[in-house]
Protein backbone atom coordinates (compact mmCIF):
# COMPACT_ATOMS: atom_id res chain seq x y z
CA UNK A 1 0.00 0.00 0.00
CA UNK A 2 1.33 3.39 -0.85
CA UNK A 3 1.53 6.63 1.04
CA UNK A 4 -1.10 8.15 -1.25
CA UNK A 5 -3.76 5.91 0.25
CA UNK A 6 -3.83 8.31 3.19
CA UNK A 7 -5.03 10.98 0.80
CA UNK A 8 -8.42 9.31 1.00
CA UNK A 9 -10.29 11.31 3.65
CA UNK A 10 -11.82 8.26 5.27
CA UNK A 11 -8.53 6.44 5.44
CA UNK A 12 -6.89 9.58 6.77
CA UNK A 13 -9.49 9.99 9.51
CA UNK A 14 -9.43 6.40 10.73
CA UNK A 15 -5.64 6.26 10.75
CA UNK A 16 -5.10 9.65 12.34
CA UNK A 17 -7.66 8.85 15.03
CA UNK A 18 -5.65 5.77 15.91
CA UNK A 19 -2.33 7.57 16.36
CA UNK A 20 -3.59 10.84 17.83
CA UNK A 21 -4.16 9.80 21.47
CA UNK A 22 -0.61 8.54 21.81
CA UNK A 23 0.74 11.65 20.08
CA UNK A 24 -1.21 13.97 22.37
CA UNK A 25 0.19 12.21 25.46
CA UNK A 26 3.78 12.01 24.22
CA UNK A 27 3.93 15.59 22.90
CA UNK A 28 2.36 17.22 25.96
CA UNK A 29 4.40 15.09 28.36
CA UNK A 30 7.51 15.91 26.36
CA UNK A 31 6.81 19.63 26.52
CA UNK A 32 6.18 19.53 30.26
CA UNK A 33 9.33 17.50 30.90
CA UNK A 34 11.47 19.60 28.57
CA UNK A 35 10.25 22.94 29.91
CA UNK A 36 10.45 21.95 33.59
CA UNK A 37 13.88 20.44 33.03
CA UNK A 38 15.02 23.50 31.17
CA UNK A 39 13.57 26.06 33.57
CA UNK A 40 14.40 24.50 36.93
CA UNK A 41 17.13 21.92 36.47
CA UNK A 42 19.74 23.71 34.42
CA UNK A 43 22.24 26.16 35.85
CA UNK A 44 21.97 29.86 35.07
CA UNK A 45 24.23 31.02 32.28
CA UNK A 46 27.31 32.79 33.58
CA UNK A 47 26.69 35.73 31.34
CA UNK A 48 22.99 35.84 30.55
CA UNK A 49 21.70 34.66 33.93
CA UNK A 50 18.30 33.01 34.04
CA UNK A 51 17.03 34.98 31.03
CA UNK A 52 18.60 32.43 28.73
CA UNK A 53 16.00 29.89 29.79
CA UNK A 54 13.39 31.40 27.54
CA UNK A 55 15.33 29.63 24.81
CA UNK A 56 13.26 26.52 25.64
CA UNK A 57 10.19 28.27 24.29
CA UNK A 58 11.80 30.58 21.78
CA UNK A 59 13.87 28.16 19.71
CA UNK A 60 11.29 25.35 19.33
CA UNK A 61 8.52 27.76 18.38
CA UNK A 62 10.75 29.59 15.90
CA UNK A 63 11.71 26.24 14.40
CA UNK A 64 8.09 25.17 14.05
CA UNK A 65 7.08 28.55 12.65
CA UNK A 66 9.35 27.94 9.68
CA UNK A 67 8.63 24.22 9.41
CA UNK A 68 4.89 24.87 9.41
CA UNK A 69 5.30 27.11 6.38
CA UNK A 70 7.47 24.46 4.70
CA UNK A 71 4.81 21.87 5.40
CA UNK A 72 2.17 24.17 3.88
CA UNK A 73 4.38 24.60 0.82
CA UNK A 74 4.74 20.84 0.36
CA UNK A 75 1.02 20.30 0.94
CA UNK A 76 0.19 23.03 -1.58
CA UNK A 77 2.45 21.43 -4.17
CA UNK A 78 0.80 18.06 -3.58
CA UNK A 79 -2.62 19.69 -4.03
CA UNK A 80 -1.58 21.38 -7.25
CA UNK A 81 0.00 18.29 -8.73
CA UNK A 82 -2.20 15.48 -7.43
CA UNK A 83 -5.41 17.24 -6.35
CA UNK A 84 -5.74 15.41 -3.04
CA UNK A 85 -8.25 17.31 -0.94
CA UNK A 86 -6.71 16.16 2.33
CA UNK A 87 -3.48 17.83 1.34
CA UNK A 88 -5.13 21.21 0.72
CA UNK A 89 -7.06 20.93 3.97
CA UNK A 90 -3.89 20.02 5.88
CA UNK A 91 -2.23 23.17 4.55
CA UNK A 92 -5.23 25.16 5.69
CA UNK A 93 -5.15 23.44 9.09
CA UNK A 94 -1.45 24.13 9.58
CA UNK A 95 -1.59 27.87 8.94
CA UNK A 96 -3.16 29.03 12.24
CA UNK A 97 -0.77 26.76 14.16
CA UNK A 98 2.14 28.23 12.23
CA UNK A 99 1.04 31.79 12.83
CA UNK A 100 0.71 31.08 16.57
CA UNK A 101 4.21 29.63 16.65
CA UNK A 102 5.50 32.71 14.84
CA UNK A 103 3.76 34.93 17.36
CA UNK A 104 5.24 32.96 20.28
CA UNK A 105 8.70 33.22 18.73
CA UNK A 106 8.28 36.98 18.28
CA UNK A 107 6.96 37.60 21.79
CA UNK A 108 9.52 35.39 23.53
CA UNK A 109 12.19 37.01 21.39
CA UNK A 110 11.07 40.45 22.57
CA UNK A 111 11.00 39.31 26.20
CA UNK A 112 14.49 37.87 25.80
CA UNK A 113 15.72 40.89 23.93
CA UNK A 114 14.75 43.30 26.67
CA UNK A 115 17.38 42.21 29.26
CA UNK A 116 19.91 41.15 26.62
CA UNK A 117 19.92 44.05 24.20
CA UNK A 118 18.15 46.57 26.39
CA UNK A 119 15.23 46.88 24.01
CA UNK A 120 11.98 45.03 23.36
CA UNK A 121 12.30 45.31 19.65
CA UNK A 122 15.17 45.87 17.30
CA UNK A 123 15.03 45.80 13.52
CA UNK A 124 17.40 42.93 13.52
CA UNK A 125 17.31 40.74 10.37
CA UNK A 126 16.04 37.65 12.15
CA UNK A 127 13.33 39.45 14.06
CA UNK A 128 12.34 41.36 10.96
CA UNK A 129 12.19 38.20 8.88
CA UNK A 130 9.88 36.65 11.43
CA UNK A 131 7.67 39.68 11.37
CA UNK A 132 7.47 39.39 7.58
CA UNK A 133 6.75 35.66 7.89
CA UNK A 134 3.94 36.60 10.27
CA UNK A 135 2.49 38.93 7.62
CA UNK A 136 2.69 36.18 5.01
CA UNK A 137 0.77 33.87 7.33
CA UNK A 138 -1.89 36.52 7.88
CA UNK A 139 -2.36 37.03 4.13
CA UNK A 140 -2.53 33.29 3.52
CA UNK A 141 -5.15 32.75 6.23
CA UNK A 142 -7.14 35.79 5.11
CA UNK A 143 -7.28 34.46 1.55
CA UNK A 144 -8.58 31.10 2.76
CA UNK A 145 -11.24 32.83 4.80
CA UNK A 146 -12.29 35.19 2.03
CA UNK A 147 -13.13 32.66 -0.68
CA UNK A 148 -16.43 30.80 -0.62
CA UNK A 149 -15.76 27.86 -2.88
CA UNK A 150 -13.35 25.44 -1.16
CA UNK A 151 -11.63 24.20 -4.32
CA UNK A 152 -11.09 27.73 -5.60
CA UNK A 153 -9.72 28.71 -2.19
CA UNK A 154 -7.39 25.70 -2.19
CA UNK A 155 -6.08 26.55 -5.65
CA UNK A 156 -5.54 30.23 -4.97
CA UNK A 157 -3.93 29.75 -1.57
CA UNK A 158 -1.60 27.15 -3.05
CA UNK A 159 -0.47 29.59 -5.71
CA UNK A 160 -0.06 32.26 -3.04
CA UNK A 161 1.95 29.86 -0.87
CA UNK A 162 4.30 29.09 -3.75
CA UNK A 163 4.83 32.69 -4.76
CA UNK A 164 4.94 33.75 -1.10
CA UNK A 165 7.71 31.25 -0.37
CA UNK A 166 9.88 32.69 -3.11
CA UNK A 167 9.27 36.20 -1.84
CA UNK A 168 9.83 35.15 1.77
CA UNK A 169 13.29 33.89 0.83
CA UNK A 170 13.95 37.05 -1.18
CA UNK A 171 12.85 39.12 1.81
CA UNK A 172 15.19 37.18 4.06
CA UNK A 173 18.15 38.12 1.85
CA UNK A 174 16.93 41.68 1.42
CA UNK A 175 16.56 42.13 5.15
CA UNK A 176 20.02 40.71 5.76
CA UNK A 177 21.43 43.16 3.30
CA UNK A 178 19.43 45.99 4.81
CA UNK A 179 20.60 45.64 8.37
CA UNK A 180 23.27 43.35 9.80
CA UNK A 181 21.94 42.80 13.25
CA UNK A 182 22.35 41.93 16.87
CA UNK A 183 20.89 38.47 16.84
CA UNK A 184 23.18 35.56 17.58
CA UNK A 185 23.56 33.09 14.78
CA UNK A 186 21.74 29.83 14.76
CA UNK A 187 23.76 28.37 17.59
CA UNK A 188 21.85 25.23 18.37
CA UNK A 189 23.11 22.91 15.70
CA UNK A 190 26.63 24.15 15.81
CA UNK A 191 26.44 23.23 19.44
CA UNK A 192 25.44 19.73 18.54
CA UNK A 193 28.50 19.45 16.35
CA UNK A 194 30.91 20.94 18.86
CA UNK A 195 29.37 19.35 21.90
CA UNK A 196 30.78 20.04 25.32
CA UNK A 197 32.71 23.20 24.55
CA UNK A 198 31.01 25.82 26.62
CA UNK A 199 32.15 28.85 24.69
CA UNK A 200 29.88 31.80 24.93
CA UNK A 201 28.17 31.67 21.52
CA UNK A 202 27.25 28.03 21.68
CA UNK A 203 24.55 26.26 23.57
CA UNK A 204 26.36 23.72 25.70
CA UNK A 205 25.40 20.13 26.34
CA UNK A 206 23.78 20.73 29.67
CA UNK A 207 21.36 23.18 28.07
CA UNK A 208 21.08 21.26 24.86
CA UNK A 209 19.50 18.05 26.16
CA UNK A 210 16.30 19.67 27.49
CA UNK A 211 16.21 21.91 24.41
CA UNK A 212 16.27 18.85 22.19
CA UNK A 213 13.39 17.37 24.21
CA UNK A 214 11.47 20.62 23.76
CA UNK A 215 12.11 20.78 20.04
CA UNK A 216 11.02 17.20 19.45
CA UNK A 217 7.90 17.54 21.57
CA UNK A 218 6.98 20.86 19.91
CA UNK A 219 7.28 19.15 16.54
CA UNK A 220 5.10 16.26 17.72
CA UNK A 221 2.62 18.73 19.19
CA UNK A 222 2.50 20.53 15.86
CA UNK A 223 1.87 17.25 14.05
CA UNK A 224 -0.95 16.21 16.36
CA UNK A 225 -2.55 19.65 16.14
CA UNK A 226 -2.43 19.57 12.37
CA UNK A 227 -3.86 16.04 12.28
CA UNK A 228 -6.66 17.08 14.60
CA UNK A 229 -7.43 20.27 12.72
CA UNK A 230 -7.27 18.51 9.36
CA UNK A 231 -9.85 16.06 10.67
CA UNK A 232 -12.08 18.97 11.61
CA UNK A 233 -11.60 20.56 8.20
CA UNK A 234 -12.45 17.29 6.46
CA UNK A 235 -15.69 17.01 8.43
CA UNK A 236 -16.58 20.65 7.77
CA UNK A 237 -15.90 20.16 4.09
CA UNK A 238 -17.99 17.03 4.12
CA UNK A 239 -20.89 18.82 5.78
CA UNK A 240 -20.64 21.57 3.19
CA UNK A 241 -20.66 19.11 0.32
CA UNK A 242 -23.74 17.38 1.75
CA UNK A 243 -25.59 20.67 2.06
CA UNK A 244 -24.66 21.63 -1.49
CA UNK A 245 -26.05 18.30 -2.69
CA UNK A 246 -29.28 18.83 -0.81
CA UNK A 247 -29.70 22.19 -2.47
CA UNK A 248 -28.95 20.68 -5.85
CA UNK A 249 -31.49 17.89 -5.38
CA UNK A 250 -34.21 20.20 -4.09
Amino acid at each position, binding site marked *: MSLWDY*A*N*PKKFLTTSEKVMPALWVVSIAGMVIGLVWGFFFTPDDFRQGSTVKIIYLHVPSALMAINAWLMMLVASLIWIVRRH*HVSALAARAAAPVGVTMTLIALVTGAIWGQPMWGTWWAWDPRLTSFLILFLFYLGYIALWEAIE*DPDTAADLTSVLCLVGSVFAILSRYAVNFWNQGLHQGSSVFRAAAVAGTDTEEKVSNIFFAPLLVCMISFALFFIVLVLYRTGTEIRARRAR*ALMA*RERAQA
Partner: protein
Amino acid sequence: MTGLSISDLAVLRGGVPVLEGISFTLEPGQAVILRGPNGIGKTTLLRTIAGLQPPLAGTVSGAEDRIAYAAHADGIKPTLSVTENLTFWASVFGGQDIAPAIAAFRLEALAQRPAGALSAGQKRRLGLARMLVTGRPIWLFDEPTVSLDREAVGWFADAVRTHLAGGGMALLATHIDLGLDGQVLDLAPFKAVLDHLDDFDEAFL
Protein backbone atom coordinates in the same frame (compact mmCIF):
# COMPACT_ATOMS: atom_id res chain seq x y z
CA MET B 1 -14.12 22.77 -41.71
CA THR B 2 -14.98 20.34 -38.97
CA GLY B 3 -17.72 20.64 -36.42
CA LEU B 4 -17.96 20.71 -32.68
CA SER B 5 -18.54 17.45 -30.92
CA ILE B 6 -19.53 16.98 -27.33
CA SER B 7 -19.44 13.50 -25.91
CA ASP B 8 -20.71 12.29 -22.57
CA LEU B 9 -20.08 15.64 -20.95
CA ALA B 10 -20.75 16.19 -17.25
CA VAL B 11 -20.46 19.66 -15.76
CA LEU B 12 -20.03 21.03 -12.25
CA ARG B 13 -21.45 24.11 -10.63
CA GLY B 14 -20.13 25.09 -7.21
CA GLY B 15 -18.54 21.66 -6.83
CA VAL B 16 -21.81 19.79 -7.49
CA PRO B 17 -22.56 17.97 -10.77
CA VAL B 18 -25.55 19.56 -12.46
CA LEU B 19 -25.68 17.96 -15.88
CA GLU B 20 -24.28 14.66 -17.13
CA GLY B 21 -24.21 12.44 -20.16
CA ILE B 22 -24.60 15.22 -22.70
CA SER B 23 -23.58 14.28 -26.22
CA PHE B 24 -24.26 16.08 -29.45
CA THR B 25 -22.45 17.28 -32.52
CA LEU B 26 -22.63 20.52 -34.35
CA GLU B 27 -21.76 20.37 -38.04
CA PRO B 28 -20.95 23.44 -40.13
CA GLY B 29 -24.13 25.30 -40.98
CA GLN B 30 -26.04 23.90 -38.01
CA ALA B 31 -27.51 25.43 -34.91
CA VAL B 32 -28.40 23.78 -31.61
CA ILE B 33 -30.83 25.44 -29.25
CA LEU B 34 -30.53 24.55 -25.57
CA ARG B 35 -33.75 24.50 -23.57
CA GLY B 36 -34.47 23.76 -19.95
CA PRO B 37 -35.81 25.37 -16.80
CA ASN B 38 -33.85 28.04 -14.91
CA GLY B 39 -30.99 26.64 -12.90
CA ILE B 40 -30.66 23.47 -14.98
CA GLY B 41 -27.11 24.45 -15.92
CA LYS B 42 -27.29 26.07 -19.35
CA THR B 43 -24.76 28.75 -18.48
CA THR B 44 -22.50 26.20 -16.82
CA LEU B 45 -22.67 24.00 -19.92
CA LEU B 46 -21.83 26.93 -22.21
CA ARG B 47 -18.92 28.01 -20.01
CA THR B 48 -17.57 24.48 -19.98
CA ILE B 49 -17.80 24.24 -23.77
CA ALA B 50 -16.11 27.65 -24.01
CA GLY B 51 -13.23 26.20 -22.00
CA LEU B 52 -13.67 28.58 -19.08
CA GLN B 53 -14.19 25.74 -16.65
CA PRO B 54 -13.06 22.12 -16.74
CA PRO B 55 -15.67 19.38 -17.30
CA LEU B 56 -16.20 16.74 -14.64
CA ALA B 57 -16.23 14.05 -17.31
CA GLY B 58 -16.45 13.72 -21.07
CA THR B 59 -14.82 15.67 -23.84
CA VAL B 60 -15.39 18.76 -25.92
CA SER B 61 -13.56 18.59 -29.22
CA GLY B 62 -13.24 21.17 -31.91
CA ALA B 63 -13.77 24.16 -29.60
CA GLU B 64 -10.16 25.18 -29.02
CA ASP B 65 -9.58 28.66 -30.44
CA ARG B 66 -12.70 28.40 -32.58
CA ILE B 67 -15.45 29.64 -30.33
CA ALA B 68 -16.79 33.08 -29.53
CA TYR B 69 -18.83 33.35 -26.37
CA ALA B 70 -21.55 35.89 -25.65
CA ALA B 71 -22.30 35.74 -21.94
CA HIS B 72 -24.87 37.59 -19.85
CA ALA B 73 -22.42 40.46 -19.49
CA ASP B 74 -21.46 42.15 -22.73
CA GLY B 75 -17.88 43.17 -21.96
CA ILE B 76 -18.57 46.72 -23.06
CA LYS B 77 -16.61 49.68 -21.73
CA PRO B 78 -18.96 52.59 -21.04
CA THR B 79 -16.30 55.25 -21.66
CA LEU B 80 -15.41 53.95 -25.12
CA SER B 81 -17.56 54.65 -28.14
CA VAL B 82 -19.42 51.91 -30.00
CA THR B 83 -16.79 51.93 -32.74
CA GLU B 84 -13.93 51.82 -30.26
CA ASN B 85 -15.47 48.91 -28.40
CA LEU B 86 -15.92 46.93 -31.60
CA THR B 87 -12.51 47.85 -32.99
CA PHE B 88 -10.90 46.64 -29.80
CA TRP B 89 -12.54 43.24 -29.90
CA ALA B 90 -11.89 42.96 -33.62
CA SER B 91 -8.17 43.55 -33.16
CA VAL B 92 -7.94 41.17 -30.18
CA PHE B 93 -9.44 38.47 -32.39
CA GLY B 94 -7.27 39.25 -35.40
CA GLY B 95 -8.43 42.41 -37.08
CA GLN B 96 -11.74 41.81 -38.88
CA ASP B 97 -13.64 44.66 -40.49
CA ILE B 98 -16.26 46.06 -38.13
CA ALA B 99 -18.54 47.58 -40.81
CA PRO B 100 -20.64 44.42 -41.42
CA ALA B 101 -21.17 44.01 -37.68
CA ILE B 102 -22.35 47.61 -37.32
CA ALA B 103 -24.66 47.18 -40.30
CA ALA B 104 -26.11 43.88 -39.10
CA PHE B 105 -27.29 45.41 -35.85
CA ARG B 106 -28.15 48.83 -37.28
CA LEU B 107 -25.62 50.62 -35.08
CA GLU B 108 -24.57 53.20 -37.71
CA ALA B 109 -26.33 56.10 -36.01
CA LEU B 110 -24.87 55.16 -32.65
CA ALA B 111 -21.33 54.50 -33.85
CA GLN B 112 -19.71 57.52 -32.22
CA ARG B 113 -21.76 57.46 -29.06
CA PRO B 114 -20.05 56.37 -25.80
CA ALA B 115 -21.34 52.93 -24.92
CA GLY B 116 -22.28 54.18 -21.47
CA ALA B 117 -24.97 56.34 -23.07
CA LEU B 118 -26.69 53.41 -24.78
CA SER B 119 -29.93 51.85 -23.60
CA ALA B 120 -29.91 48.26 -22.35
CA GLY B 121 -31.19 46.96 -25.68
CA GLN B 122 -28.67 49.01 -27.66
CA LYS B 123 -25.87 47.68 -25.44
CA ARG B 124 -27.07 44.18 -26.10
CA ARG B 125 -26.95 44.84 -29.84
CA LEU B 126 -23.39 46.04 -29.46
CA GLY B 127 -22.55 42.95 -27.43
CA LEU B 128 -23.99 40.71 -30.12
CA ALA B 129 -22.32 42.66 -32.91
CA ARG B 130 -19.08 41.76 -31.16
CA MET B 131 -19.60 38.13 -32.20
CA LEU B 132 -19.39 39.11 -35.85
CA VAL B 133 -16.02 40.79 -35.51
CA THR B 134 -14.40 37.77 -33.83
CA GLY B 135 -14.30 35.80 -37.07
CA ARG B 136 -14.76 32.61 -35.05
CA PRO B 137 -16.82 29.80 -36.62
CA ILE B 138 -18.60 28.60 -33.46
CA TRP B 139 -20.84 31.07 -31.67
CA LEU B 140 -22.10 30.39 -28.15
CA PHE B 141 -24.98 32.53 -26.90
CA ASP B 142 -26.33 32.71 -23.39
CA GLU B 143 -29.83 34.24 -23.49
CA PRO B 144 -28.90 36.55 -26.39
CA THR B 145 -32.31 38.19 -26.76
CA VAL B 146 -32.61 39.64 -23.25
CA SER B 147 -33.75 43.30 -23.47
CA LEU B 148 -33.95 43.22 -27.28
CA ASP B 149 -37.14 44.46 -28.96
CA ARG B 150 -38.92 42.38 -31.58
CA GLU B 151 -37.21 44.11 -34.47
CA ALA B 152 -33.74 43.62 -32.98
CA VAL B 153 -34.50 39.95 -32.33
CA GLY B 154 -35.17 39.70 -36.05
CA TRP B 155 -31.81 41.32 -36.88
CA PHE B 156 -30.11 38.91 -34.50
CA ALA B 157 -31.81 35.90 -36.13
CA ASP B 158 -30.75 37.21 -39.54
CA ALA B 159 -27.15 37.59 -38.36
CA VAL B 160 -27.11 34.02 -37.07
CA ARG B 161 -28.70 32.74 -40.28
CA THR B 162 -26.07 34.50 -42.37
CA HIS B 163 -23.37 33.02 -40.16
CA LEU B 164 -24.80 29.52 -40.58
CA ALA B 165 -25.13 29.95 -44.31
CA GLY B 166 -21.45 30.80 -44.43
CA GLY B 167 -20.58 27.47 -42.77
CA GLY B 168 -20.63 28.73 -39.21
CA MET B 169 -22.15 27.05 -36.18
CA ALA B 170 -24.22 28.38 -33.30
CA LEU B 171 -25.19 27.07 -29.91
CA LEU B 172 -27.90 29.09 -28.22
CA ALA B 173 -29.43 28.96 -24.78
CA THR B 174 -32.72 30.77 -25.30
CA HIS B 175 -36.44 30.48 -24.69
CA ILE B 176 -37.48 32.61 -27.61
CA ASP B 177 -38.32 31.04 -30.94
CA LEU B 178 -35.95 32.73 -33.34
CA GLY B 179 -37.25 30.94 -36.41
CA LEU B 180 -33.92 29.23 -36.85
CA ASP B 181 -34.04 25.70 -38.13
CA GLY B 182 -31.81 24.01 -35.64
CA GLN B 183 -32.19 20.97 -33.47
CA VAL B 184 -33.56 21.66 -30.01
CA LEU B 185 -31.81 20.01 -27.11
CA ASP B 186 -33.86 19.80 -23.95
CA LEU B 187 -31.49 19.60 -21.02
CA ALA B 188 -34.01 18.39 -18.43
CA PRO B 189 -33.34 14.67 -19.03
CA PHE B 190 -29.63 15.23 -18.45
CA LYS B 191 -29.98 16.58 -14.93
CA ALA B 192 -27.29 14.88 -12.92
CA VAL B 193 -28.50 12.14 -10.63
CA LEU B 194 -26.32 12.12 -7.56
CA ASP B 195 -25.58 8.60 -6.48
CA HIS B 196 -26.25 7.71 -2.91
CA LEU B 197 -23.54 8.76 -0.50
CA ASP B 198 -22.37 5.93 1.62
CA ASP B 199 -18.74 5.98 0.75
CA PHE B 200 -16.51 8.72 2.09
CA ASP B 201 -15.03 9.36 -1.30
CA GLU B 202 -12.00 11.34 -2.31
CA ALA B 203 -13.74 14.10 -4.21
CA PHE B 204 -16.28 15.19 -1.60
CA LEU B 205 -18.89 15.34 -4.32
